């Protein structure tokens, strides 16, 4: 989860998020090289009082500074397209989680074998204990099994919301009357936080999402105890 001054991406908890992070880092290298080079050129020209009176045409350099950016773009485009198609792969989920966005909380439904439903409200700051995360902790966390392909079906009951967990690389809008499906797999246990990502009224900033990733047996125990 992010605390203040976190500028970068959160540690990946899903194989797809790890790939997104690698891609981001790869692009960042290319961009920093370009910026350094251009910045150096700019600085050297600005600090130079000499003028070249015979600068005309120069086909060679024109060719170079057209072809080289094209090649750089290919280095960016190929991993990008690979990742784009990877994110769209069809997989066979083992469990479906439904989430419905309301003003201003999320409700979750596990209906595959038992019908478990609950609401997840943010813990108000004045009721938070000393170790709690302000504006991120909720009363009922969404428990899910790790190393299991999970399908999540997202919708809303009133206005548009958006369900996201950055550590898993998942974000999809919650639109009333529509079911948006996305899929993920958590490769490690832990707590993963997210916040509503579509303006939905007064308490838009106060409807977070917490996923608790546990091993399969703990999940099965939790879900069977919940329905009792």
């Amino acid at each position: 989860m992010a605390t203040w001054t976190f500028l970068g991406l959160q540690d990946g908890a899903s194989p797809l998020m790890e790939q997104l992070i690698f891609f981001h880092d790869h692009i960042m290298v290319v961009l920093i090289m370009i910026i350094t080079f251009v910045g150096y050129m700019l600085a050297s020209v600005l600090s130079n009082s000499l003028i070249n009176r015979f600068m005309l045409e120069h086909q060679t350099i024109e060719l170079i500074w057209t072809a080289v950016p094209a090649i750089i773009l290919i280095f960016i485009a190929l991993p990008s397209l690979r990742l784009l198609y990877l994110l769209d792969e069809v997989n066979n989920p083992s469990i479906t989680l439904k989430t419905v966005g309301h003003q201003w909380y999320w409700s979750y439904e596990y209906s595959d074998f038992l019908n478990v439903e609950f609401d997840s409200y943010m813990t108000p700051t004045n009721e938070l204990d000393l170790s709690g995360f302000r504006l991120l902790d909720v009363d009922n966390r969404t428990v899910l099994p790790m190393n299991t392909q999970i399908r999540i079906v997202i919708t809303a009951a009133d206005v548009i919301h958006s369900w996201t967990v950055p550590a898993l690389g998942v974000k999809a809008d919650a639109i009333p009357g529509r079911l948006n499906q996305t899929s993920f797999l958590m490769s490690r246990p832990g707590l993963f936080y997210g916040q509503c990502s579509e303006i939905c009224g007064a308490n838009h900033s106060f409807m977070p999402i917490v996923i608790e990733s546990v091993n399969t047996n703990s999940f099965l125990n939790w879900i069977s105890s919940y329905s009792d």
Partner: protein
Amino acid sequence: MGCDGARQAAVTLVKTGVLVSRRGGKRKALLSYCVIASHSAAATAAHPGRGEVIMSEAIMSSQAMETAPFDPRFPNQNQTKYCYQSYVDFQRCQKLKGDDYEPCQYFKKVFQSICPNAWVEKWDEQLENGSFPGKI
């Protein structure tokens, strides 16, 4: 319920003109049902007698987690139609075959997994009132 069960249900619906495949003719539509049901067929084969889901068994066994399978008729992000179609197919299947016909339960399993409970409750109410907009 295996490939045959789902196929039977699909054949009934296709024969009576209730289900019309949009692409590739009848065969492809039936084939897609088979692909869908083969997932549950594998599960049924691996766990004989799972037709009647015994709650405690399903809960305690870690291989028992099974959900609505990928349906190639709805490959993209928008699954609204998958939910609605499964609900309608279940109602039509029940109407055609009666309440005791086991293969109809496949559609029920799918819509219970995919459709928000609020939608299902609303549609059930509409069915009771006679105001359900779909053709059953």
